[in-house]
C-alpha cells in the first residue's frame, strides 16, 4: 500500500519510512503539513501517517483538508501523538483522524494498526462499489432509484446528472431497425 508519512522531525521521518518499507509498503514522505497537502493533492494515498504537532500548523489541519475533499476515495488517517495527548483524542477524531499511535512508535503495534486500516479501506471500497450498482429491469431497462421508483434510463440520466440527451440512431440500430423499417415503408408505398 502507498503510505504518506508526515513528520517535521527528520529522525522520526527516517525511522517511520524504514519501518514501513520493512513492513512491505511504498512510502512517500513530507516534512510539513503544507508539503504533505501538495503531495496528497497531486497523488492521494489511501493511508496517511502524520505527526499531530508540527512547526507549520498541525496534523489536524491536514486531516481537515483530506476530509474536505468532495467525493474522493476514502483515506485512512493515523495521527502520531506524544504520550501526553490524553484528553485531546476527541479533537483528533472531529478533525477526521481514524486512529492514533503514540511516539515512539512500536513496530508490532504499527503493523497491527495498518492491518486494521487495510481491512477498513477494503470494506469501504466494497460499500462504495455496492452503492454504485444500479438495479435495472432485465426487460424494459428501467432503473430503480434509491427512493424505490422505477424510471426510464433517459429520465434517470437527465435527473441524476448534468447531461442533456439528444436523440439519434447508432450504426447497429440503423442497420437492424431503421434501414429495414424504411425499406418496408417504401415497399408498402410502391404497392
Amino acid at each position: 500500500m502507498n503510505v504518506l508519512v508526515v513528520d517535521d522531525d527528520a529522525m522520526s521521518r527516517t525511522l517511520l519510512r524504514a519501518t514501513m518499507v520493512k513492513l512491505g509498503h511504498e512510502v512517500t514522505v513530507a516534512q510539513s503539513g503544507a508539503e504533505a497537502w501538495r503531495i496528497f493533492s497531486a497523488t492521494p494515498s489511501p493511508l496517511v501517517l502524520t505527526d499531530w504537532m508540527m512547526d507549520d500548523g498541525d496534523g489536524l489541519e491536514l486531516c481537515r483538508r483530506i476530509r474536505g475533499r468532495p467525493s474522493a476515495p476514502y483515506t485512512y488517517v493515523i495521527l502520531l501523538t506524544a504520550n501526553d495527548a490524553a484528553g485531546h483524542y476527541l479533537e483528533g477524531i472531529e478533525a477526521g483522524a481514524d486512529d492514533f499511535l503514540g511516539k515512539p512508535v512500536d513496530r508490532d503495534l504499527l503493523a497491527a494498526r495498518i492491518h486494521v486500516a487495510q481491512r477498513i479501506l477494503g470494506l469501504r471500497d466494497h460499500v462504495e462499489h455496492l452503492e454504485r450498482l444500479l438495479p435495472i429491469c432485465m426487460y424494459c431497462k428501467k432503473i430503480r432509484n434509491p427512493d424505490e421508483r422505477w424510471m426510464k434510463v433517459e429520465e434517470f440520466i437527465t435527473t441524476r446528472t448534468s447531461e442533456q440527451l439528444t436523440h439519434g440512431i447508432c450504426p447497429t440500430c440503423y442497420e437492424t431497425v431503421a434501414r429495414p423499417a424504411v425499406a418496408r415503408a417504401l415497399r408498402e408505398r410502391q404497392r
Partner: protein
Amino acid sequence: MSDRAARIGTKAAAGEAAADRGEDAVDETALAALLDMTGDAVIVQELIDVYLTDTAERVVSIREAAARGDIATVRRIAHTLRGSSVSIGARELAAVGHRVEHTFTAESADGAALIERLAAAFERVRESLRRRQQRRDPP
C-alpha cells in the same frame, strides 16, 4: 497539583534520577529496538547522525528563543526534541525536554537553569553516542 502536572513531574524525575545514578545517557535497549524496527544497522547509524545534528541545532534554537522570551517557541522545539530523544533512548534528555516543554517560563531563574540542564544533558548524550561509535569502529 493536577494529575497532568503530577505525571510530568514523575516522568521527568524518573529520567533525571537515572542520570543521577550514573547510568549511561543513552539506553542501549532503545537502540536495539531501533535496529529491530528497521532491520538495518546502517539506518540506525543514519538515525543517530540525524538526531545529533538536529538536536544540537534545537538546543541552540531553544537558547536563543529563551533569551528573547519566546516561550511558545521554546516549548514547541522542546516538544520535538523530547520526542526524538525518547526514540533514541536518551531518557534523561527526554525528561528534561519534557520539563522544558511543560514548565518553562522566561521570567524565572529556574527557566534559565532548566535550559542549561538541557544543554548539559545533550552533551552527555553526544558523548555517550560518540563512545558507542568508537567501540563499534575502533581506530
